[in-house]
């Protein structure tokens, strides 16, 4: 019963929670945060069940679980598909979201005095959209969920500093253009194939792969999704959005928002169009890989130049999403597993880093890197230790998890014989080291003026905020040690 209906349950539970938050919020504003956290937690548990079920099915040689809404069989009806790839992304998205929402409890007073229910309802809808994008087996339906998540994220981003609405507006314009391009691409494909169902389309594409219309459609879809994924040079909306928005939204959106766009990229490039079909006709994946490589370097260099911690993390996101898209575009199992593992790692790392930045923003009122000094290590010992762990993982030093995704990506570039990208991966590690050690050096060593650092009283945030951040950082260490079995499963997800 659960198994058969599992794909639909994610969306159903999120819709119910969103409604419940609004209704309950009328009377008890404080109920919003626990409800939203519960919603994400339920989804995270469902994802875990889904993962186990999918693994069992794969081992037994069963096909993916398909769920036709309203009993309508595809291609007429819309269907959800739960396979290894979608189960993996669901776990990452819902798991990280649950921790971030739990963490946000300590921060509500700072940002959301007036309207926590609205905020958490939006956050839940945002997650609903992401879950739908991951699960759907229908290209048009994907657009619908894309818009649900996008619209809620515009609103989530608009809550923040005075410039936040402007940043959100910019995102809205660019995001809408991206969404529209994607939709036009889907229109082309529908005109040529007569279906919107991904599995159907997969079977038809080899027959029409030579048609110029396919390339146009694919380009439109990639550019459209590329905007959402912040594929270089389509990242324009991202830095300001992450910087200006409130620190709950940035911790929620930054780790998982772009990942789901990357997921759509994987679905379309590797599954619907097919890794081999695609490259046999159009060398499109090379172009994406090079753009992603350029994004890695660009994001890292820009991150070094930033004076605001949140903006620095935003540029670092552009660089890290580059790793993921590059791994996808290299189209071999090693790079693919590295990219997926980096999805997981980067979600954990970015969530941790944005959480710590929210601690500083809350206590200090600003996250200007120039103000960091050794009083921070005394005032925020736990947060800074957490930051250090995540930073080491971002740089990619063993035994943190970040090292192993980069290792797999490096092996993938060698496998593909792509020496430029091999060099990019290595050099970007050093660039990461420059900006993260720059911060660590300030926090641990830079004199805070006349006053002896140890004279500062401890000024940490509540354990309710410290603990989730620390937990995620420690998870990175754990995943560093148990990465081999994870990577093996991820390699097996590469479509053959």
């Amino acid at each position, binding site marked *: 019963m659960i198994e058969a209906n599992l794909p639909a349950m994610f969306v159903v539970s999120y819709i119910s929670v969103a409604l419940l938050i609004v209704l309950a919020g009328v009377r008890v504003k404080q109920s919003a945060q626990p409800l939203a956290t519960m919603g994400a937690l339920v989804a995270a548990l469902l994802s875990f069940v889904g993962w186990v079920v999918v693994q069992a099915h794969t081992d037994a040689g069963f096909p993916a679980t398909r769920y036709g809404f309203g009993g309508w069989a595809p291609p007429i009806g819309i269907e959800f598909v739960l396979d290894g790839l979608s189960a993996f992304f669901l776990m990452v998205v819902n798991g990280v979201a649950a921790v971030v929402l739990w963490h946000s409890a300590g921060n509500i007073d700072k940002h959301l005095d007036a309207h926590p229910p609205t905020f958490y309802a939006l956050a839940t809808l945002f997650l609903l959209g992401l879950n739908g994008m991951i699960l759907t087996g229908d290209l048009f339906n994907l657009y619908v969920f894309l818009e649900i998540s996008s619209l809620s994220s515009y609103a989530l981003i608009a809550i923040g500093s005075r410039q936040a609405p402007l940043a959100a507006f910019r995102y809205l314009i660019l995001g809408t253009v991206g969404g529209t391009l994607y939709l036009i691409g889907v229109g082309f494909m529908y005109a040529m194939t007569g279906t919107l169902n991904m599995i159907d389309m997969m079977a038809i594409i080899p027959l029409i792969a030579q048609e110029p219309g396919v390339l146009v459609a694919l380009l439109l879809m990639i550019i459209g999704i590329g905007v959402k994924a912040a594929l270089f040079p389509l990242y324009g909306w991202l830095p300001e959005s992450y910087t200006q928005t409130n620190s709950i939204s940035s911790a929620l959106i930054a780790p998982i928002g772009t990942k789901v766009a990357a997921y759509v990229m994987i679905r379309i490039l590797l599954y619907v169009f097919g890794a081999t079909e695609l490259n046999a006709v159009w060398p499109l994946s090379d172009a994406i890989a090079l753009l992603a490589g350029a994004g890695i370097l660009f994001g890292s260099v820009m991150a070094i130049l930033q004076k605001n911690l949140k903006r620095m993390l935003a540029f670092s996101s552009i660089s890290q999403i580059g790793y993921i898209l590059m791994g996808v575009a290299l189209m071999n199992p090693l790079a693919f597993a590295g990219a997926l593992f980096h999805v997981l790692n980067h979600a954990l790392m970015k969530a941790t880093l944005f959480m710590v930045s929210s601690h500083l923003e809350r206590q200090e009122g600003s996250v200007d890197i120039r103000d960091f000094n050794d009083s921070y290590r005394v005032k925020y010992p736990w947060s800074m230790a957490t930051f250090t762990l995540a930073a080491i993982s971002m740089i990619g030093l063993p035994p943190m998890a970040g090292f192993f995704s980069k290792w797999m990506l490096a092996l993938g570039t060698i496998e593909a014989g792509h020496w430029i990208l091999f060099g990019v991966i290595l050099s970007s590690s*050093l660039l990461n080291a420059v900006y993260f050690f720059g911060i660590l050096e300030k926090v641990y060593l830079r004199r805070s003026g006349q006053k002896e650092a140890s004279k500062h009283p401890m000024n940490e945030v509540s354990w309710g905020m410290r603990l989730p951040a620390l937990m995620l950082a420690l998870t990175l260490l754990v995943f560093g040690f148990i990465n081999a079995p994870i990577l093996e499963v991820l390699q097996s997800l590469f479509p053959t």
Partner: protein
Amino acid sequence: MMVQSEFIPLLAVLVSLFAIPLIALSSNRPNLREAWTFIAALIKFGLVVSLIPGALQGETVGGALFEIAPGLPFELEADPLGVFFALIASGLWIFTSAYSIGYMRGNSEVKQTRFFAAFAMSLSSTIGVAFAGNLFTFIVFYEILTLSTYPLVVHKESDAAIQAARKYLTYTLTAGLLLVAGAALLYMETGTLDFEAGGLAALTTSTLSTGKLWVIFILMFIGVGVKAGVMPLHSWLPSAMAAPTPVSSLLHAVAVVKSGVFGVLRVSGFVFGFGVLQQIGADVLMMVLSAFTLTVASFLAFKQDNLKRRLAYSTVGHLSYIVLGVSLMTMSGVLGSVLHIAAHATMKITLFFCAGAIYVNLHKDSISQLDGAAKVMPWTFAAFTIGAMGLTGIPPINGFFSKWTLALGTIEAAQWIPLGLLILSGLMNAGYFFPIVARAYFKPGGQDLEGHGEANPWMVVPLVSTALLSVIFGLFPNAFVHILDLATVIMEQIFHSGGSL
């Protein structure tokens, strides 16, 4: 309690790791805190010593623990070479621990808890480097070693220390990255990163082009060469002297830099194999660079008035003796290299101990200020003289025998220029060490020496002990821990298990 012998390498790594929380928790009780360091050091040394009998039989203890990356096991194996390096690092840690107490307290250093914790971490990773059973495990510990020594280099938190630490990280992180790059390329070509005495069988039989072999070798050689201080990659080492002297003594004369030369031995003797390296001509590159380094470093040592910096340049030179010995790829050359790892360790640690004792006691760090200092610090300068004589290569100190064996190696390989440079550099060692000794003994001391006596026994006992060890190992190379026999076993393994000449 009996311990399953295959877990001894793991335990030896973990001992000092477990000590870290204990050290941190006893932050307010310095005596207890230092007791943890001692207990960890003694247990670690005991564990390593228990591996010696097996190593003398050429045995390898331990094995793969789990898979750390797909296809790559996390492997801790104590082979003779690993035991040899671990023995030196863990044995000298005991002396350094005692010395650190005298130094840190005598100098009223701040943040001693962080210091001792980072020290324990560095030792854990050094032993990890020693016992790493494959290149991947080696890299993991190599990087942790970099990170855990960073707080030690930056300890004083002065601008100079911060600059030095930045330089240190830049060099070592870049090196680590190149090592990773080399490992990735090698793994994709051969499907293995294991260490095999005599070189990877997969590599000797493979059809890799010379160009690719060169690329992989260069990447790896730079990766380990930075920590081994091979010019032009050495300049972090003199800067790293900004660290407190116990760090310079154990880490920047023994553990960290020796993990670099140890890496050179691993990469050339256990990954590529001498046969492959000679075939592509990489031995020539190693020889040229190391011969250049050991000569130029000696010249540079002359110019330093700061005692620790002079010692640092001397270290750069002596590390290249070891690399040179490897590059000869003859039996005596390798034997001399391995012996010099041990000999240089006991001698150079003595000299650094002395430099630190002088600094704490007399507040002097320049050679030009040492006039007459031997009169007030007789034990310290006696030890210093022994160390200096040993490094110069005067019998019966252990430095003589390792240098002698290295010289034999150059003759075996018929490499006359390196032989000449070895002799020249020996003379220069005398040239930059003996003026210090002469100044301290024979020049009249200034007024400022009055009222000063010998340093605190916590410092004097360790430095006299390591000086004595240098003499004892010179007279009886197999005393206590069978250094010579171990070195012979290592040499035989490299040459007779598959490595063809």
